[in-house]
C-alpha cells in the first residue's frame, strides 16, 4: 500500500491549539496543500491576523509575520510591493477583515494588490469568546448579542465578497465552505485558483471560507457543521462571486 494522503510539507508537524472540530485546521491544510502543489513554499511570506489564527505561524512551514488587528492587507501590500517576486497571502477572520480592518481590506482590493486573502467567516469573534461579528446572522446569540442579533440595533450581516465585487480592481472572489468532503475539495480548488492568479500576476483575490466555531457557538462539532449547512450558507450563499479573467 502507498501513502496517498498525508500532512503537506507546508504544514509543520505541530499539534494545533484550535478547539476540537474547528474549521481552521482544515483550511490551514488546504492552504498548505495548494502552496505545495504550486511549488511556492520557499518564496511564500504569509501574514497572520489577530484572532484564533494568529498562531498560524506555529503551523505553517514557511516565512510568516503577524499584523495588528485588521491590518494584514496593509502589511501584505508593503511586503508584496517591495518584493513582487514573493508569494504573499493573508489569513484573516471576519472581525479582523470586515470590522476593524474594513478600510485596509477595501483599499488593498481597490488598488488591485496582487495578493491573496483567505477569509475565514465563522460568524463571530472566536478568540475573545464568541462576540458578535459583522457576519453574525440575524437572531444569532453571541456573547454580546444575548438576545440575538437585532438588525434595528446591530444592522445586518456584511457580505464582504459582494461588497468587493463592485470594485473594478478586484480579480477573483469566491465563497466556499468546509462542512463536508465535497465542499472541502471545492474550497481547495478555489484557494489554489486564487493562488495561481497571484502567481500569474492577475491581481487581487479573496476566498471567503464559511467555517464553524463549535465551542463559541455552544454546539458539538457535528451540530456546528449541520448549522453551517442549514443556516449559515442560507445567508451566505456559496459560489463564484466574481472572476474578472472569465469576463474578458
Amino acid at each position: 500500500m502507498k501513502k496517498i494522503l498525508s500532512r503537506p510539507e507546508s504544514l509543520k508537524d505541530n499539534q494545533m491549539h484550535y478547539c476540537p472540530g474547528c474549521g481552521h485546521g482544515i483550511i490551514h491544510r488546504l492552504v498548505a496543500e495548494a502552496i505545495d502543489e504550486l511549488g511556492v513554499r520557499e518564496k511564500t511570506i504569509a501574514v497572520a491576523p489577530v484572532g484564533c489564527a494568529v498562531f498560524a505561524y506555529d503551523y505553517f512551514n514557511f516565512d510568516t509575520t503577524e499584523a495588528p488587528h485588521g491590518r494584514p492587507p496593509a502589511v501584505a501590500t508593503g511586503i508584496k510591493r517591495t518584493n513582487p517576486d514573493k508569494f504573499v497571502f493573508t489569513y484573516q477572520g471576519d472581525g479582523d477583515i470586515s470590522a476593524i480592518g474594513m478600510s485596509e481590506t477595501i483599499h488593498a482590493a481597490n488598488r488591485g494588490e496582487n495578493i491573496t486573502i483567505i477569509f475565514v467567516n465563522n460568524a463571530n469573534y472566536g478568540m475573545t469568546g464568541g462576540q458578535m461579528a459583522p457576519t453574525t446572522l440575524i437572531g444569532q446569540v453571541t456573547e454580546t448579542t444575548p438576545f440575538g442579533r437585532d438588525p434595528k440595533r446591530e444592522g445586518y450581516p456584511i457580505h464582504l465578497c459582494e461588497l468587493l465585487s463592485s470594485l473594478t480592481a478586484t480579480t477573483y472572489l469566491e465563497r466556499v465552505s468546509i462542512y463536508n468532503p465535497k465542499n472541502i475539495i471545492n474550497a481547495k480548488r478555489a484557494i489554489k485558483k486564487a493562488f495561481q492568479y497571484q502567481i500569474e500576476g492577475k491581481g487581487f483575490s479573496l476566498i471567503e471560507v464559511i467555517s464553524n466555531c463549535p465551542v463559541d457557538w455552544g454546539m458539538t462539532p457535528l451540530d456546528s457543521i449541520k448549522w453551517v449547512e442549514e443556516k449559515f450558507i442560507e445567508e451566505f450563499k456559496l459560489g463564484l462571486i466574481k472572476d474578472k479573467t472569465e469576463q474578458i
Partner: protein
Amino acid sequence: MKKLVKGNVALCEGAITAGLHAYFGYPITPQNEVPAYMSRKMVELGRVFIQGESEIASANMVLGAAVTGKRAMTSSSSPGMSLKQEALSYMAGMEIPALIVNVQRGGPGLGNISGAQSDYFQAVKGGGHGDYRLIVLAPNCAQEMYETAYDSFDLAEKYRTPVMILSDGIVGQMMEPVEFNRPEIKEFANKDWALTGCMQREPRSIKSLLMREGSLERHNIDLQEKYEIISKNEVQYESYLTDDAQIIITAFGIASRISKSAVKLARKNGIKAGLLRPKTLWPFPSKIISELAKPQTAFLCVELNHGQMVEDVRLAVNGKSRVEFLGKGGGGIINEIEILEKIKKLVK
C-alpha cells in the same frame, strides 16, 4: 554646491540617497511636501510609493516592507502620528527597523497647522502601548533633515528598532541651502532575520505575540538590554558656549535655533549664557546635563510647548541646579528677545 530647498524636501533626499525602497504616506499639513516629493521621485526611480488610505494603513505598509528587510518610511504630522502609534508599538516589539517622521503641528486634537513641539512626550515616552523606546532624532535645520534621514536607516538596522525623526512645521517648511553631500547607498547588508522566503533555510517568523509562559517577560528584558546599549552608544548633542555658562539653555529642534540667537544676544549683554541642544531626544543626553549642573548654574528649558522636555532636564539635573521653563504652545513662536528677558531675570 548648495541647493535651496525646504526641510521636508531635504529629508526626502536624505532618505532616498540612503537607498529608501518604499515610502508610504497620507496627506496632512505641515508634512505634505514629503508625500508630494516622494510620489514623483520614488516613481521616477522605479521604487515604491503608495498613498495609503490612512495613517494607520501607511504605517502598517511600512511594517510589511520592513519585515522583509527593505528600507521603508512613512511621515505625518501630529494628529496622524497618533494613528501610527499602533504600528510603532508592533514594530518595536517585532524589532523591525524603519523610519517614521513627525513634522509636528499644534495640538491637542486637530489643533492647527503651525509648527509646534508638543509631541515630545509621545515620541520619547512610548506613544503606543507596552514597554518600548524609539530612537528619536531632532534635526533643527534643512541640512540636518537631510543628514538625519540619511543616517537613520543605518541606526535603525544596527539595533533592529524603529527610528523617529521629530521635526516640526517650521524646520519642515523653511527653505534653506543644503549641501547634498552623502554618497548614494546601493548595496545593503544581508539581514539574517528578514522574511525573504525560506529558500534553503528554516522558515522564519517575526511577531510580537509571545504567549508561552515567561517568553514575553524574557523578550522585554532583551529589549531593555538593547535600549541600555543604545543609551550608552548613541547619545548626540550640540554644546555651545556651555563651559563657562551661568545660564544654560536646553532646547531641541527649531527652539534651539531661536535659543542660540538668544545666547549670542545674552553674551553681547555680558551674560555668560550657553546652549545644550539634544540631537537625540531618546536616548537623552542626561549625562552631559548632569555634569553641567552645578549650584551656581541655572538651566532654562525653551520649548514650543507647555513644558515637556523640561521634565527630562530636571531628572538629569536632579536638584543640582535651578531649572526654569519658557515655552509657548498651540503654534505660538518664541523670539530671542523674550528668551533674553527671561535670562536677564534669571541672573538677577
